[in-house]
């Protein structure tokens, strides 16, 4: 049966299935804020469970929580502070990458700032591990770089 292009009514929910097989419901208006999800809905229809291979049951509920608040216009600085308060750096990273995958811009921008804030006073080694990059400087190159900008290392605990 042919379906008309659906205009999302506020009561319409979409089913999302995570990479680890769990299913979550989200309102259609919230799904609209996630461009990847919206694209999948446009391709697959809104009556089908949308597969999100790259997002898992640990992070999706948190993302849904954010957008539930967003569609009612209730996102405040206080809410955002509370939202990330109990998350460790790795948990924020996972959320950030999921927001990138889902093309959920508002959350993506917010988490970008949160990550920058968290990394600001961290050591070089911590940042390497966090971004998953290797140290590809030679010892001489690295000590030269550190010497040249010694002032920027002041007050930073390099072993954290």
């Amino acid at each position, binding site marked *: 049966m042919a379906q008309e292009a659906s205009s999302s009514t506020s009561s319409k929910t979409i089913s999302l299935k995570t990479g680890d097989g769990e299913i979550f419901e989200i309102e259609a208006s919230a799904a609209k804020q996630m461009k990847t999800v919206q694209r*999948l809905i446009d391709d697959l229809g809104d009556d089908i469970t949308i597969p999100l*291979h790259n997002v898992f049951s640990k992070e999706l509920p948190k993302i849904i929580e954010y957008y539930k608040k967003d569609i009612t216009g209730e996102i405040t600085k206080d809410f955002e502070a509370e939202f990330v308060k109990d998350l460790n750096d790795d948990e924020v*990273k996972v959320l950030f990458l999921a927001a990138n995958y889902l*093309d959920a811009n508002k959350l993506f921008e917010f988490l970008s700032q949160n990550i920058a804030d968290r990394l600001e006073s961290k050591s070089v080694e911590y940042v390497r591990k966090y*971004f998953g990059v290797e140290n590809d400087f030679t010892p001489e190159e690295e000590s030269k770089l550190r010497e040249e900008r010694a*002032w*920027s290392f002041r007050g930073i605990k390099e072993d954290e």
Partner: protein
Amino acid sequence: MMNSLGRRGMEEKYFPHDLIIIQILPRLPVKSLLRFKCVHKSYLYGFGYDQFRDDYLVVSVSNDMTINYGVNSQLEVFSLQDNTWREIEGNFPYFSNTWTDDSPRVGLLFGGDIHWLVAKMAPGEDSSDDVILTFDLMERKLLEMPYPDDFDFVLYDNCALWVFGEFFSLWVSDHVNCSVEIWVMKEYKVHSSWTKTLDFSIEGLSTWYFYPICSTKTGDIVGTDGENVLQKYNGQGQLIEHESYSEDPLDFLVTLYTESLLLLPVDNMQV
């Protein structure tokens, strides 16, 4: 929003480089940025032969991952004949946009050029575009090639340059449809000749991954599942063979080698 989607599932720690450079670093204060210049060098390199000058070259495109009035990578070339590195001046707003984290840093040698998949910083510095970066070994110049026109970045979770048969090619894995696509440039350097020649399902495999490594003379594709199984698909996209090559998944890298014979100099013989 960035094009690169990072690697699906397997490596949660993986953080796409373009996200680091465009989304995170610009939000840091100067003091942190200067410190973080020590974090990582982010480079691309390649090896090739300049037949015009009978010279072997190593090419390096590197930047230190922080933004200082615009991303500008350094282009340096080592020539075996000159036995020295030389920097080539220019504006190179490119950085590695690693779709996989294993070896796209190493450029693909094809058609007398070295190629990489990179991100190019947009003039406004608030976003990046994906392009194919090419180093012409004879002209010793960096050039760009766009991706095929109907390339659907959103659907792809992995992508790499490749040589399929005799063609300059791209393979992509589409995580939504659980499939792999092969695109070839039927005529090298002719943009309109990009064609999707193969689109096959990799569903039903234990992992959802397939990484092409090489193609056979009969047009079959050999690759790995990302863990410890080698697979061969035929030209119609059907799985015709698979073989586990190690007990320990994730502990091996697979590569291709070509045998060749060299005549070694003997006594008064000249090479």
